[in-house]
């Protein structure tokens, strides 16, 4: 216990508390001097909470030591490029480390933790939805200053944003762990920035959870004004949390791009990079640039609330639709941030388990970039019913339909890769296939939403909810699990339990399809999203009950996974060799990966996915005693 309190995590959280109190106290003091009210419903006033939340983040980072090297540099003191690892075992993961593998695992475990929190919120409101009328989130209850329906709204909104942050961290986790290994780099290009990107996400998650207890907010994760301009103070913590998490995403993405451009091993030309690297670059381009716009849009609402600058207040000449444009300029491309790495994982793993070359490597590589590019041009398809200028609908409809082309390229490549392959079905492969099917369902339900005439009816129904859960599960959750099963031996030297992995898959997948298809069914019949109750006369009760049961089964499956994951770290079957018989460089060396990655640099001498071609080779390690030409 004493050890825990001296970790960077515990110190950071302690300093975040201090920072929050300092910031809030500062504003309160100034308010008292100015003769304004010092306290409010949630003890501090809103400006005090905002500065407190902001100071909390700064204090966290200064207090846990993730910025200390930069302060030394600013004072002209040099530091070694890499610090020797001071800790072993679990302590390594709760302290500031510059090793990309440690940071990757920190990201991944944090993402799993947040998935559990977000999933728990979903189960709470799913339980309420199992029957029409209000069962336990009643109007007369009061929790955190919210009555039942208000609490429902908060949980529903937080489910959205916590899952999004969790996905961003999960994506960053896999990219952090895998990309330098695939490139043959010793670390990311900027190890300190990498650690900073991770650690800034921790106070961000705390801020998001703080919004729950500070009155919550009923706006949905989109935070549209004017509703968000009137919500309780919790919405400010939500904005601040997203803003902070956004910096994690921006800086992490920047690091990935620079790493890929500058740190590839010898012979790895652009067209010999693994597909996952291509996908990481594509996703990072979006995350690095567009994320600024969600930060800006939320910041403008924060200022509107704090200083009365009515950017989005029509009574003051502002324009609420402007917020939606700024917001969706990030938040649509954001879904490609979520899915592109996952689709990259599918393309990466499929050839390994099909023992066949990836079909159409160049096209798949370019399709990731194509999706990223087109993704910047489609944002207003979320706004067909918003009252924006009508002439904008048509171009955005067509640009959205255009996304189907590069995505289709990926599907054809996968099908052609599976075709006549010698498939094996470990848990990782099952999740790859589950991801393909789920993403297909999500993909096919997309174009109807993109078509203006249909979208006007489907907008804000459960059809949309079913659609995006299919895309996000297919594009992120299934491939994320696949990646964890696949790269787990690389990180730990042990395998996750295959049997429980298969139970996880066969429990989660059917339940998930029941969930999303059921959502689409009642959505088509007129079930509105984001509401706590529905009319019993609609006859949705039985479907909602099935959806709730399916939701619980998914929760159970994820629980099985979590137990399997943590149990296997210390008790899993030993797997130190090339367990998947992969051609990828990281599997050519023993697991777990040593601290400084490869002892010998490797050279890329062939194509990455030529499985089954006799005598073909992807990488060749430099052997000091042997000559390089084989």
């Amino acid at each position, binding site marked *: 216990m004493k050890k825990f309190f001296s970790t960077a995590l515990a110190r950071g959280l302690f300093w975040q508390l201090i920072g929050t109190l300092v910031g809030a106290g500062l504003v309160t003091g100034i308010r008292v001097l100015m003769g304004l009210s010092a306290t409010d419903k949630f003890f501090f006033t809103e400006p005090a909470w905002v500065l407190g939340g902001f100071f909390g983040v700064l204090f966290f980072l200064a207090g846990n030591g993730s910025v200390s090297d930069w302060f030394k540099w600013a004072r002209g003191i040099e530091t070694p490029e890499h610090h020797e690892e001071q800790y072993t075992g679990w302590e390594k993961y709760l302290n500031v480390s510059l090793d990309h593998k440690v940071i990757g695992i920190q990201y991944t475990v944090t993402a799993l933790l947040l998935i559990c929190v977000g999933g728990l919120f979903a189960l709470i409101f799913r339980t309420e939805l199992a029957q029409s009328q209000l069962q336990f989130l009643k109007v007369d209850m009061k929790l955190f200053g919210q009555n039942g329906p208000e609490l429902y709204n908060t949980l529903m909104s937080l489910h959205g944003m916590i899952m999004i942050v969790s996905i961003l961290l999960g994506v960053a986790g896999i990219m952090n762990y895998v990309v330098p290994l695939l490139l043959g780099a010793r670390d990311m290009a900027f190890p300190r920035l990498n650690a900073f990107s991770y650690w800034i996400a921790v106070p961000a998650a705390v801020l998001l959870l703080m919004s729950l207890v500070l009155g919550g907010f009923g706006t949905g994760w989109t935070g549209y004004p004017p509703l968000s301009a009137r919500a309780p103070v919790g919405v400010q913590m939500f904005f601040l949390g997203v803003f902070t998490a956004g910096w994690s995403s921006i800086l992490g993405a920047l690091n990935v791009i*620079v790493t890929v*451009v500058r740190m590839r091993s010898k012979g790895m030309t652009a067209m010999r990079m693994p597909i996952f690297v291509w996908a990481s670059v594509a996703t990072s381009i979006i995350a690095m640039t567009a994320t600024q716009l969600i930060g800006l849009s939320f910041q403008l609402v924060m200022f509107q609330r704090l200083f*009365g600058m009515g*950017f989005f207040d029509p009574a003051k000449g502002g324009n609420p639709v*402007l917020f939606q*444009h700024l917001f969706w300029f990030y938040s649509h491309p954001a879904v490609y941030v979520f899915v592109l790495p996952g689709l990259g994982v599918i393309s990466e793993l499929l050839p390994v388990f099909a023992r066949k070359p990836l079909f159409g490597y160049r096209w798949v590589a370019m399709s990731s970039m194509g999706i990223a590019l087109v993704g910047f041009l489609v944002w207003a398809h979320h706004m067909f019913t918003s009252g924006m200028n009508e002439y904008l609908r048509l171009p955005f409809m067509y640009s959205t339909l255009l996304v189907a082309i590069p995505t289709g390229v990926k599907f054809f490549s996968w099908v052609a890769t599976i075709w006549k392959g010698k498939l094996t079905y470990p848990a990782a492969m099952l999740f790859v296939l589950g991801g393909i099917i789920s993403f297909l369902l999500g993909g096919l339900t997309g174009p109807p939403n993109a078509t203006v005439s249909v979208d006007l009816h489907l907008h804000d129904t459960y059809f949309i909810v079913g659609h995006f859960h299919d895309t996000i599960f297919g594009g992120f959750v299934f491939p994320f699990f696949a990646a964890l099963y696949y790269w787990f031996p690389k990180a730990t030297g042990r395998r996750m339990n295959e049997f429980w992995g298969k139970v996880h898959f066969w429990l989660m997948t059917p339940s998930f399809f029941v969930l999303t298809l059921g959502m689409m069914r009642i959505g088509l019949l007129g079930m509105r999203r984001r509401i706590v109750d529905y009319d019993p006369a609609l006859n949705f009760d039985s479907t909602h009950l099935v959806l709730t049961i399916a939701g619980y089964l998914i929760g159970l499956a994820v629980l099985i996974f979590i137990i399997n994951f943590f149990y296997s770290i210390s008790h899993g079957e030993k797997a130190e060799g090339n367990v998947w018989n992969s051609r990828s460089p990281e599997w050519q060396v023993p697991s777990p990966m040593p601290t400084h990655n490869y002892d010998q640099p490797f050279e890329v001498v062939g194509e990455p996915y030529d499985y089954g071609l006799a005598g073909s080779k992807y990488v060749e390690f430099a052997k000091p005693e042997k000559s390089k030409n084989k």
Partner: protein
Amino acid sequence: MIHTQDKSSALGQGVLIFVYLTILTALEFFIAITFKSVSILIVVAVIKAALVMYYYMHIYKLNENSDDDTHSYAYKTGTNRLGLWLFLLSDTFVFAGLMAARINLLGFTRPPLNQLLGLAVTAVLLLSSFFMNRGETSMAHGDTKGFLNNIVITFFLGLGFLIGVVAVEWRLAAAEGLVASFGNPANGPMGGVFYIMTGMHAFHVFTGLIFLFVVWNNARKNIYSAEQHWGVEAVAVYWHFVDLVWIFFYPALYLIGKLIV
């Protein structure tokens, strides 16, 4: 570090570019008060931006990656340079978003601001960029003393800009009825847009001043040399970027559109 120019010609180039930028800024002002053509103003701003990016920020250095040894200072500087430029690209999206908000909310109108004061602060920032360039050139040729002198001038010009905007301009604007909370209904959304645009830019100037202080302080300890001065280069590029943003914000706030009061 490969010197393509000797010191005096590099400094001479800086002067020449400064003269061009001054002429273009004067031209901008002249166009704005005479025939008010927005498209010409955009063209002039783009030319100014291109001059700053090429001659002051040395964007072409992104291509200079001849060094094969990945552990050398030169190679690491190349990596850092790419990282910095990507960060600036990311930052550009914030300013582009603010510009989009300005166009959406204000259209072809502009806030009631003193155009001469705008010209004055713009000139101060431009001049600070000129001295920043002189400072960086000095350091690239190993002249720490010249660097220190120029960086002090840059710092105080930057401080002058910050005071000019935040202490003088904001006060005058508030006196004109341009208040953040849109207390004057005749101004519409102008107050908020004006304060958030200048405020976000001023925040970047402020951080730039901190960075200037940091490199000035380190240069006094003689830790930079002609070969190894990435810190100086980074601050110079960042400082010119702040100038670059103002090249677009200045006409957007002071020059284009009709004045409605």
